[in-house]
């Protein structure tokens, strides 16, 4: 019986009887907040940048102009220019694609492996569960970047390895969440209800367990993309990911760090975009999560 009537009272102010005690009366889920709108707009900007970068920045991201090197932000060069006179705004926009692809692919790899391991652990019985769990415990003993570094040590630096490395290092976390989700869904009372209805196991799995387990992955994935971009850029920064002059944000930052005292804009703007992208992904992820909870 719900008894935090202070809360329930809010929903009941009109005197109606149909109150939803499960629903937290925080903000109406249907109306997006200012932050959400800004995030969505920035997300749109990113998507356009990734798909048709020339629409937003017609210039050549690799085009040099040695005589215009180290121009501070100005009307001609919104984000300034780098050591070879390349326009940083153009490079940031053109770099969106690769950064997003790195983030998405890494997250997809992490989630994919996570789903594989998590589902195996959650569905294939106690022996598999035990084995996978021990395996995850072992992987957890390698903090994220450590696992990535090990992988790079073996397969050499580069964008592809950095992407896979970030994906790998996030997989154990996803696997654990998915396993937990799977187990909680599996033991939930609506799955029992389906058993009582005489549904075969595989149909319960397909119709109830998997959809309810995987739906939250959308949120996880969105949140994960932001973090994956941050980690991949960290690898680029350490010289183990994308290499200059490719307009990848982490690599740009890495190139800019040398000139930090004289040309702060070279590292500031790519960094800002990494941060904003991660924030945007988090906000959108949270927003989806809230909507799903309230739906």
């Amino acid at each position, binding site marked *: *019986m*719900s*008894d935090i*009537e*202070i*809360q*329930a*009272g*809010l929903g*009941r*102010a*009109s*005197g109606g*009887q*149909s*109150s*939803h005690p*499960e*629903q937290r009366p925080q903000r109406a889920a249907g109306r997006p907040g200012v932050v959400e709108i800004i995030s969505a707009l920035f997300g749109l900007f990113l998507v356009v940048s990734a798909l048709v970068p020339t629409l937003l920045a017609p210039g050549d991201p690799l085009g040099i102009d040695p005589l215009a090197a180290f121009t501070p932000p100005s009307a001609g060069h919104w984000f300034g220019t780098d050591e070879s006179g390349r326009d940083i705004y153009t490079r940031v926009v053109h770099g969106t694609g690769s950064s997003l692809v790195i983030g998405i692919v890494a997250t997809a790899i992490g989630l994919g492996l996570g789903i594989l391991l998590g589902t195996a652990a959650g569905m294939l019985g106690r022996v598999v569960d035990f084995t996978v769990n021990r395996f995850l415990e072992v992987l957890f003993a390698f903090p994220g970047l450590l696992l990535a570094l090990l992988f790079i040590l073996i397969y050499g630096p580069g964008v592809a390895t950095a992407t896979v490395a970030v994906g790998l290092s996030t997989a154990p976390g996803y696997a654990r969440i998915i396993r937990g989700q799977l187990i909680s869904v599996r033991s*939930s*009372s*609506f799955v*029992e*209800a*389906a*058993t*009582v*209805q*005489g*549904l*075969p*196991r595989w149909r319960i799995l397909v*119709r*109830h367990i998997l*959809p*309810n387990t995987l*739906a939250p992955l959308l949120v996880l994935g969105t949140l994960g993309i932001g973090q994956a971009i941050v980690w991949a850029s960290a690898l680029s920064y350490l010289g183990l990911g994308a290499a200059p002059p490719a307009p990848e944000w982490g690599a740009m930052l890495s190139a800019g760090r040398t000139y930090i005292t004289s040309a702060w804009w070279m590292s500031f703007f790519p960094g800002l975009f990494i941060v904003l992208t991660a924030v945007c992904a988090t906000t959108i992820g949270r927003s989806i999560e809230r909507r799903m909870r309230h*739906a």
Partner: protein
Amino acid sequence: MTAALEVKNLTVGFGGRPGQDPVVQDVSFEVAAGECLAIVGESGSGKSVTARSLLGLAGAHSWVQADAVSITGQSVLGLPESAWRRRRGRDVGLILQDALVSLDPLRPIGREIGDSLRLHTKLSAADRTRRVLELLDSVGLPDGASRIRQRSGQLSGGQRQRALIASAIALDPPLLIADEPTTALDVTVQAQVLELLAEIKRRGNAIVLISHDLAVVSRIADRVAVMSAGRIIETGPTAEVLQNPQHPLTRAMLAAVPVDKPRRTQLSAVPVATIAPRSTVPDGLSVDDYPVRPVVLEASELRRSFRRPDGSRLVAVDDVSFRLHRAETLGLVGESGSGKTTTARLALALETPDAGEVRIFGEPWSAVQEKARRRLRGSVGAIYQDALGSFDPRLTVGDILRHALRAPAGGTTERGGSGHLSTESSQLLDQVGLPSGVLSRRPVDLSGGQRQRVGIARALASRPRILICDEPVSALDVTVQAQVLDLLDELQQELSLSLLFISHDLGVIGHMSDRVAVMKDGRIVETGATADVFADPRHPYTQQLLEAVPRFPQRSR
């Protein structure tokens, strides 16, 4: 002598401008020292908001207006927060429902109880401890020295409710607000806690008792105020209100209480005066004929135990045997931890017994593989306490019913078109008294009663002959409960269903069951025809249970 509490035209609301959309409106009452006023209402009636306003804790974004609110003669209207703090705990105490969450689970109860002393007195730590021990003793928790170091999670429900009461009366406030103090407690414990409150009242404290349960309040309340939609609709001395209710809503609430209402009596939406048995015995058979009716479900010597974290085993169900006959209701009653739910799960073959067997229609049920059971699954339906949790959150009501109809055990064997399915879904809804408009809605958007009706509709989709109902009405308000009970009753008669009806509520069991089995500690301690067991309980535990059932004072009617 001034009243311990005087409230005149209290109006409370949330958000918006003061005065707009109040949740509590023009509520007035008085409570004298040594008197208990019960405020009764269903969920959403505004009773708890009223109670909390009396402590200045109406909540965030709330506004409170009143002509007068005074405690022991002193006005508390518009008191600043600091002044309120000095009064809370000293002039007025609060007892909430379920001390598991109402006492800080991380702190020892000694500290929680001692907090009032720490906040309002200058007692030394040692003196505080001494006082806490006295308090624990006075609320019936002996051996306080070891108790004070325990946390709420280590105590039983009754013990922690006593601890919570101790914390509220630490400074002997002249006014106590008790908000559903016995809800969620087992009936025997409930009786003890009520007795404790009565004792406190006798000491001279004024009590405002908030409850949804008229029967509970009738035990100790001197006067009753019935609330609905934010207003007091009726108030007066307890006996008067119970015996001669004036307001139709009060009457409906009273009628809805199943305690001592004979089997097949309609509970809902009928004026008290017109309650009349529709038919005493179905199918023209008497209770004594049951043995000759076919047995649809038989449990024999069931045993199921679980491993505790420390490796020892907890025997949840021990040597349980019963038979469920066609078109009868077998009530399974017991307190929390008695093994009722495990029994239900065994009956549904969601658990496998360690020993013993369940058979339905004479065929093996628990002893075969799930695959073999599937053929019979459609004959056994289930209704759950938490209806919402039993629905896949992604699905609409329509989806839920269509899935149920299409399930292997579902009613639709040959693949009908989708139009056919939606017709059947609407029929199912109609059967449980819901408009077909809810088909497109999600269970989360429905009220508790509506959800349970959807749950019943789903169970009926496969045209079952047995329904296992596990606490199907425990989460519902009494009038809604009455509707659901009536519905089940109706359906049973219509469809000759056999019901295994599980509840902790003796009143509900007494009203619903033809035969009853009383469970305690995993065993059935007494079984028999309901009337017999209720009239002449043999087992001391059954006696104890029946004595504890809150009843209205003897009515002369």
